[in-house]
């Protein structure tokens, strides 16, 4: 790591990290609260240094399809948007998953549904982990809770995407995108050369040599038998990911009698709620899923044997709480607390919710 500590917004950290981790191309379309990703890339002009392409497409739909094209060639490519824009991308996301292409998508969520507000929200949880696009597919979903994680998860997202040939998504929100914090950016890593791509991505469309069959990048398979086999292969891959890639953080959980479950900005606010509750003698802990899919089911099931109740705290009307309940399977009460449409709770509101809903 380069030791220089910088102060920047989460969105800016995404842009700088993309350049540094050897990203080949960014395709996007501006939308609040994530426009600084594209703005920062345009300001830094990485095409002059690393050769990374930065392109403002004519729409979100074209941006995700440019990602599909780049990814099909084995390139490290990404796009970013906010909720309404991510909805537009869903067809392309399903195609990426169906064609087993690695790519990175960033969603800096805002209040919905529809055009909604520009303020922070976490109401795209379902869209991210339960589909969004059509078909039986999964996205590897990373939920950063700090500007440092915004930077770190770009490289991690690409690594996981290439490891499993599957799109990965960074699910952030307006708080994490707009907030400035200290960050240490990753070291520069060169972009892959054409030779490296040919070696590491034998599936990629890089030009057909005489000694192998052509590579076909498609999600289309007209024979249902073959398509079922494709799906079975995807499901096996998803199972491997579920076994190997679950990430979460435990905060003050050791002696906890009550457990908060929260991701992203909510986890930060919950951390303060834990501090306040502890001062009042309430043994409160926090489990923060870092990967929303694969979800830390086992960790939550284990805590169901230790705590009296759980509260899923989300900036939505109750989405992740369903996965918490599935994991806990009725062992302890699991309630939800949320604010909607761009309103963000304060730490004391969460402490009150703990007292009112699970104590």
């Amino acid at each position: 790591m380069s030791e220089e500590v910088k102060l920047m917004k989460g969105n800016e950290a995404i842009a700088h990290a993309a350049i540094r981790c050897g990203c080949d191309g960014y395709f996007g379309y501006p939308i609040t609260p994530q426009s600084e990703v594209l703005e920062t890339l345009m300001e830094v002009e990485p095409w002059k240094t690393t050769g990374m392409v930065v392109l403002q497409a004519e729409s979100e739909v074209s941006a995700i399809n440019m990602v599909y094209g780049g990814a099909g060639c084995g390139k490290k490519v990404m796009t970013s948007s906010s909720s309404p824009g991510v909805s537009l991308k869903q067809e392309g996301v399903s195609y990426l998953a169906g064609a087993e292409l690695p790519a990175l998508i960033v969603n800096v969520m805002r209040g919905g549904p529809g055009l909604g507000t520009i303020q922070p929200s976490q109401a795209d949880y379902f869209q991210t982990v339960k589909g969004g696009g059509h078909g039986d597919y999964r996205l590897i979903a990373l939920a950063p809770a700090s500007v440092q994680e915004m930077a770190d998860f770009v490289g991690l997202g690409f690594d996981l995407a290439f490891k499993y040939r599957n799109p990965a998504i960074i699910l952030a929100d307006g708080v994490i995108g707009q907030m400035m914090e200290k960050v240490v950016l990753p070291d520069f890593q060169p972009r892959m050369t054409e030779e490296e791509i040919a070696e590491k991505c034998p599936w990629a469309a890089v030009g057909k040599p005489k000694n192998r069959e052509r590579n076909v990048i498609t999600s289309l398979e007209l024979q249902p038998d073959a398509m079922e086999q494709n799906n079975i292969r995807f499901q096996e891959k998803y199972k491997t990911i579920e076994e190997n890639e679950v990430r979460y953080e435990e905060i003050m959980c050791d002696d906890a009698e009550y457990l908060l479950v929260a991701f992203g900005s909510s986890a930060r606010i919950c951390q303060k709620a834990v501090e306040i509750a502890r001062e009042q003698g309430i043994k409160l802990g926090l489990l923060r899923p870092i990967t929303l899919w694969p979800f830390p089911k086992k960790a939550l099931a284990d805590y169901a044997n230790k705590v009296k109740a759980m509260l899923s705290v989300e900036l939505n009307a109750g989405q992740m709480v369903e996965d918490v309940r599935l994991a806990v399977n009725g062992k302890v009460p699991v309630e939800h607390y949320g604010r909607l449409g761009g309103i963000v709770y304060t730490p004391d509101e969460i402490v009150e919710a703990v007292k009112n809903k699970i104590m």
Partner: protein
Amino acid sequence: MKEEIIIAGFGGQGVLSMGKILAYSGLMQGKEVTWMPAYGPEQRGGTANVTVILSDEKISSPILNEFDTAIILNQQSLDKFEKSVKPGGTLIYDPYGITKAPTRTDINVYKINAMDTSIEMNAPKSFNMIILGGLLKVRPIVELDNVLKGLKKTLPERHHHLIPMNETALKKGMEIIEK
């Protein structure tokens, strides 16, 4: 040490940039820092606020319900945030345009005539630096040297010639803030 600060006023008064300079100053002083703006369409004329936290320890929530210090630059913000200052905390306000002065007696209230002073100094744009100077006088959370370094980091190079003027404004703010 941990200082949780809200700066609130009209968009265009330099609320966000004052917060940014404070955050950079904290960075220069080796503190943990968060800067969380109420972002959106309020860039000019509407209300704007930013939460800045400087701390020796890792910072949990960037969103707070109460503050050690509130810097208040218009009536709407005073109405909204006077009650959010922790007992024993600090409230700094510019009386320009304030019709109902703060009433709480369990906090330290300071007045700073920054708007009038910036006009007298013929430097209306240094308004927010006068305020920041006032803050540093009553809450010396960062050293002036680090503020100047922070300014250098936040201002584009073409504006670096304005740093001496900003320094003057900071020092003026330290002089004119009063209980």
